[in-house]
């Protein structure tokens, strides 16, 4: 049973436009959420996170939104750049402090 779901395996956007990556979770005990970026042949790199007591966190071009009632979070990248092309993983942490990952979404930003 997958507790963190990224239902879109891939997403393609034009350079300069907004990229929206979505993530749903089923475990209401998750209280901290993270996004990672992964380039081929590299390990995941932490990108941005959000605590369950917030509904938005912003860091430069990256903003994460959390909707607790819907158990949904999203990552917005504005404006998208070709260098943003990578696999993006959503992850969640609960009271056991262990990370639970989604399967990832491949983002392609076209010049």
């Amino acid at each position: 049973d997958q507790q963190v779901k990224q239902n879109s395996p891939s997403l393609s956007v034009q350079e300069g436009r907004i990229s929206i990556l979505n993530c749903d979770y089923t475990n209401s005990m998750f209280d901290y959420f993270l996004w990672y970026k992964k380039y081929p042949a590299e390990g995941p790199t932490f990108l941005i996170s959000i605590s369950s007591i917030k509904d938005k966190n912003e860091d430069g071009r990256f903003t994460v939104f959390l909707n607790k009632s819907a158990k949904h979070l999203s990552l917005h990248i504005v404006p998208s750049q070709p260098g943003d092309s990578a696999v993006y993983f959503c992850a969640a942490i609960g009271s056991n402090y262990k990370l639970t990952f989604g399967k990832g979404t491949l983002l392609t930003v076209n010049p």
Partner: protein
Amino acid sequence: SAVISQKPSRDICQRGTSLTIQCQVDSQVTMMFWYRQQPGQSLTLIATANQGSEATYESGFVIDKFPISRPNLTFSTLTVSNMSPEDSSIYLCSVDNGAFFGQGTRLTVV
């Protein structure tokens, strides 16, 4: 921050053999985490390794199959034993509970 050097970056192994993956961290860390990413799947925690004690394995993973060593605060190894094609995955080490990852080891078992 932490820099993690993971070796090998990739390998192709015969079934029935074993492969040991190494992770070296540039600073001392209490816990190191080992993950597996099977093709098309999410990263799954295999075990948590503390220096000076036995690793703690997650459900579905056993020490005989994935023995782990943690001889000091900057180094750990994961061995994939008696490999089968189902073990073909990317294996990753991590520190600081996912804040930093090694570059991964892509293992193919033939």
